[in-house]
């Protein structure tokens, strides 16, 4: 994925959370790491890239590494979009084959193409859900992940307050 090289995981105040498995396992995997990268500040050459302004595009990177002794499967990464962030449609991806799905109902359900029903010219039609409705992004890694292997998933979101472009699509 083209943006991965820009990630700076250690510089952006990453909070790490460890949990123990509820089922038996030989070794806990390395917890999920997250990083945030201010794409807008970088492009504008701003000095303080650690602070985001309304309208700035933030690229989030989620790095999951299998630190167990065996392969794992059914790996799902879920990112609830925080309040104040608006997902840039089409920006989610990963460096391995994944299925990307979205929720617009608070994580209750996911679909690859969220739609809403609307009435146009007296007819009920389905329209693509506006990006402001997106609440969660989910990456499902296809296949298994060998010991020591990792998957990096990304998405871009915009700090609320200044929306660039008419369509809201990812750049």
């Amino acid at each position, binding site marked *: 994925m083209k943006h991965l090289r820009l990630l700076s995981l250690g510089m*952006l*105040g*990453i*909070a*790490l*959370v460890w*949990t123990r*498995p509820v*089922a038996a*396992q030989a070794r806990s*995997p390395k*917890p*999920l790491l*997250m*990083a*945030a990268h201010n794409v807008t500040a970088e492009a504008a050459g701003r000095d303080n890239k*650690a*602070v*985001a*302004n*309304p*309208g700035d595009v933030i690229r*989030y990177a*989620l790095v*999951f590494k*299998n630190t*167990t002794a*065996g*392969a*794992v*499967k*059914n*790996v799902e*990464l*879920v*990112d*609830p979009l*925080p*309040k*104040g*962030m*608006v997902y840039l449609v089409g920006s989610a991806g990963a460096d391995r084959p994944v299925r990307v799905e979205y929720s*617009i*109902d608070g994580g*209750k*359900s996911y*679909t690859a193409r969220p*739609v*809403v*029903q*609307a009435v146009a010219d007296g007819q009920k039609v389905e329209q693509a*859900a506006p990006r*402001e*409705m997106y609440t969660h992004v989910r990456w499902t890694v296809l296949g298994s992940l060998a010991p020591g292997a990792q998957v990096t998933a990304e998405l871009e979101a915009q*700090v*609320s*307050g*200044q*929306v660039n472009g008419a369509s*809201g699509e990812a750049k």
Partner: protein
Amino acid sequence: MSRHIKWAYRLALTAVFVSVGGRVAAQTPEGTVIHNTATATYTDLNSNTYAAVSGSVDVTVGFLPGITVADNTPSPTPASPSTADTLSFGVSNPGNGTDSVTIAENISVAGIMTVTGYRYSGTTFATLTDLNTALSSVAIAEAGSITIQVVYDVATNKGGLNTHYTLTATSRRSLTTTDNKTSSISPAQTFCVGTCGGGGGGGGGTRGVIVDGQQHIQKLPGNGYTAVYNVYNGGNGTDGFDLIARRATTGSAPIAIVSVNGVTGDSARITLAPTSGMQITVVYNVADIVGATDSLFLKARSVGNPTASDQDYYDLVVVKPNLTLAKAAIYDATSLPVSGTVVPGNILRYRITVTNDGTTDAVSVQVTDTLPAQMTYLGLANSADWTITQSGGVVTANYTAASQLLAGQSSTFEVRVSIN
């Protein structure tokens, strides 16, 4: 998609239409820490489940400046002159953090308005510097606003003119963030021929049209006479005036209008600055209709407001001298009229009386009398008012008592002759 999900979408739809219409999401306040926590779940190859792991990252929202100026009085039309007029500007902060502003101004055309103060929060500041000093401690919260009133006077005689007042507000935290709005100030114009409210038909003010000199005039038949009027613009702005000359009578009336203010015909148009006047000359001819009367009007009508007008006129009487001459023969010795016959050697006097029974004076009055061949010119008698010469029996008498023989006046001279 399940029925449950579709219902959820429907419920969300109304909110979508409302919030997305402008495609501007709510502003995230400065200093907000956006906390993003993701989770990962997985199983091993035997489908044993494990506790989810999570990671998080924080993004701190910085300051995004924004200044918007709203013009609440975009096109005022104050009187000219007037005082303590106001322009109202709203200065709002659409940025995501508290800010303060400095105010600047620009007036496009000088001399029309004079700013006398700047009012903020009930206090009027004499200068922009004073205002900005006060505003330096005024924090405008996110989505907050303040109102600035500009107090100004309008100078006299500025009706119909226009100037633009531009107020610029600049963020003190981001000097490149600025906005401005412009009000177009157009002082209302008054259109008055003569003093507003007092001219026109009189009333104590300055008349809009008034004859320059004696109103009642006498004129000999002739061409190229001039009648002069003073036309005055009492309005507060530059105005055009249609000048229309006319006579009182029709048909065989003696006056024929030649030109108005140099323009052939009976009308012309002029432009006058506020509270200024101009002398207008109407050229006219007078026909040879002795004793006829007429009037020569000049009307001035505002172009800006054709209902505003004034006029004045000259009364004119056509005058003309009319001389009659009476000649009598009298005895030189007795001064009695000659009666019967005369004999050679008799000395007589020809008494010639010239009377002007016209309506005006006669100038260059001259009498020529060719003596009969039977008479010999001897000299003059009682001819003090005349200068008389004789040559070859032709007597020439010029009235020299005055430059003119007044209307209704008579004068007499006598020539002594003898009978051959």
